[in-house]
């Protein structure tokens, strides 16, 4: 009796274990985007999917599971079978802050994902109206120091990467305090800035490149290691003397934890090829999105680093007196 049981158990284990890796993919793959259709993550995903599915041999269907700043989609993803047929976009540091915010009661932690490949790295940027009185970041910081909690700085959402970036700026320039206004997305920021309801906006390069080019807005600084190739005239915070203000928003593809290495390898190969494809590159670059493919250890390290950094600022954000 015992032997039959063990044999059966072993057989089941063998069948469901690595068998998946050999005949992957054997049905369409679902690529989850944790934001509503039409957003920039979504459009990027659809472009990648349409190119990658040819090499994969099975259709890649983009599934939108938006809501709660991505939490709904990521919650769904960690519950799926890690056989490679359900993968999705994770957005760092948004995914991190959802995990770290105790109020969110996320059912997943950073260990519940298998990072596959990173797609886009969109550096943070500080921008103002073209005719604003603030011509440089220093103007801004001086004004924030002179009249703390008066200058209205917009984010794209509570605990977004922009939110954390403002806190980083306050940390790097002690005495500067901004009045945080949480708007929903870059378009809202643009409108309120034009209307004069806010003074400065923190967002990402991809959102504003076209407007900087057309002269409607002025980018004061980019929060990255090096200047953005889309905004070559805009200095980095590092150059301006604030090297600790480094913030960006990445989009990458991951799966639930426990994916077999062979499956991850195949997905990586197919997706990397799609991301290197010239048509894909040109479409993304026309939107001002910087492609930064990261795989393997590099991506995992990036994930861990971002998580640690996000923890510090998330805690601060939750306890900030002026909210």
């Amino acid at each position, binding site marked *: 009796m015992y032997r039959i049981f063990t044999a059966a158990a072993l057989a089941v284990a063998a069948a469901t274990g690595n068998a998946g890796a050999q005949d992957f993919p054997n049905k369409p793959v679902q690529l989850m985007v944790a934001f*509503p*259709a*039409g*957003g*920039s993550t*979504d*459009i990027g995903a*659809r*472009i990648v999917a*349409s190119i990658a599915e040819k090499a994969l041999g099975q259709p890649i269907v983009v*599934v*939108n*599971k*938006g*809501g*709660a*700043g991505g*939490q*709904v989609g990521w*919650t*769904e993803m960690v519950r799926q079978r890690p056989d490679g047929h359900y993968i999705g976009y994770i957005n760092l540091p948004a995914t991190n802050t959802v995990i770290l*915010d105790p*109020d*969110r*009661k996320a*059912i997943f932690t950073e260990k519940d994902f298998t990072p596959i490949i990173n797609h886009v790295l969109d550096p943070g940027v500080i921008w103002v109206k073209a005719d604003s009185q603030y011509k440089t970041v220093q103007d801004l910081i001086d004004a924030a120091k002179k009249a703390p*909690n*008066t200058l*209205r700085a917009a984010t794209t*959402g*509570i*605990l977004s990467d922009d939110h954390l970036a403002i806190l980083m700026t306050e940390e790097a320039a002690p005495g500067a305090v901004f*009045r*945080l*206004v*949480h*708007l*929903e*997305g870059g*378009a*809202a920021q*643009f*409108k*309120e800035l*034009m*209307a004069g*309801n*806010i003074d400065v906006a923190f967002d990402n390069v991809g959102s504003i490149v*076209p*407007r900087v*080019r*057309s*002269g*409607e807005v002025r980018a004061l600084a980019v929060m990255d290691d090096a200047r953005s190739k889309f905004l070559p005239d805009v200095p980095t915070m590092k150059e301006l003397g604030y090297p600790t203000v480094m913030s960006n928003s990445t989009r990458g593809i991951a799966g639930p934890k426990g994916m077999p290495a062979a499956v991850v390898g195949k997905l990586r190969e197919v997706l990397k090829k799609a991301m290197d494809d010239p048509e894909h590159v040109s*479409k993304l670059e*026309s*939107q001002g999105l910087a492609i930064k493919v990261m795989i393997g250890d590099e991506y995992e390290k990036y994930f861990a680093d971002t998580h640690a950094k996000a923890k510090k600022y998330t805690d601060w954000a939750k306890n900030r007196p*002026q909210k």
Partner: protein
Amino acid sequence: MDTLQHLLTGLAAAASLQNLSFALIGCILGTLIGVLPGLGPAAGTAILIPLTFTLDPIGALIMLSAIYYGAMYGGTITSVLINVPGEAASVVTCFDGYQMAKQGRGGTALGIAAIGSFVGGIAATLALIVVAPPLARVALSFGPPEFFALMLVGLALITGLSGQSLLPALVMAVLGLLVALVGIDPVRGAPRFTFGVPSLYDGVGFIPVVMGLFGVAEILLTIEKPYRQVIKTNLSSLLPSRPEWRRALGAIGRGTGIGFFLGLIPGVGSIIPTFVAYVFEKRISKTPEQFGQGAIEGVAAPETANNAYANAAMIPLLTLGIPSSPTIAVLMGAFIINGLTPGPFLFKERPDLVWAVIASFMIGNVLLLVLNLPFVGLWARLLHLPYQYVCVGTLLFCVIGAYSLQQSVFDVGVMIACGIIGYGLRKVDLPIAPLVLGLILGPFIEKSLRTSLEMSGGDFSIFFTRPLCLGLLVIAAAVLAASMLRLPPPQLRESNP
């Protein structure tokens, strides 16, 4: 005049055979998207963006814009025929449109909707041409405090929906507002009333709720009666009668104005103009008790407002680069992918492109009318199928619609629950429309209040020191007072939509 010249050049470009066919394809696709359950205009447009990669920029934009306002019309068809709104903005059309269909006048309802949409769209486009840039600037002065005040005006209008039974309408509205608060709150970004269910983090889905309250509940009400025919009388003429024409035309005129002005304000969703137009029409009507029973103005007003809104909402996009709604944001994404960033710069530097797109709106509106009017009779005939097929078809429609929004069984569950609740509410004569209005306005009210206070650093005087905001608050108070005082002497209790 410079603008006229631009328009004519634009018309010439838009009327090229190639662009005409793009507009046509867009209209057809858009109508289909509007009819198909769950697939709203935003998602539908997003899905079709890759399709346009192979086209030249103008062609792509013409097609995508056509899809956008085509979808507005498609949603009407299901509202009228099976009391299920094809997309959120079509909810109000259910009130009277479905009743008209039950009286065998579904064709008339669809017809007047098509005509109203056409008039609203053309008028809005013409107004766009004449007053675009200056009006757009006015729209900019609508910030979060003004928005909050506008939402209060919307709330005050609920009293206009209620007719005699004010108390039940208020209760339903409060319930709607409360349900709207479920989800992540705009203050701390933490879940509220979600009881650990992740599917609720983004709130109780609006579409599953209305599909249940309207569609499923209606089916239950149809089945429970011994006499099962969905249509009570035979199909009559497709066109409205002479007195109906007069009432409808008035409603169309007013709907155009309301839709146009609300379309200029960024952030006003597509449902709000329809509600405002409907309630306004009911308030000034000499026969308000007919609303909810198949009054033709009850269809003409919201449908016209809807299309006027859709066309007017392109103004902030094209002149300022500000998208007024999520669907338009998708459209804007499409512009950008095609290398064109909408905004004052594009307006000045590439008027040929912008005006070709604007001209295509006019052509698109004509195309929609031409496409849809002939089929109106055909659509209406669907209701003559044996009622079992209509019912099961509608249920299938609702299930797919609720599920495919977020690939979520939970949403289907919400829809079923709301179907039962809606059935119960109708049996005890508690009005559903205020509930829906509360559900729509709720999130806007809290968010705009919060954002206003963030801007002012907690100072409430911001609402009183901004002239436009103060003005709107006064209007809200006035509307409320007028309704309270104008209540006619109590009559027999009427049934409410």
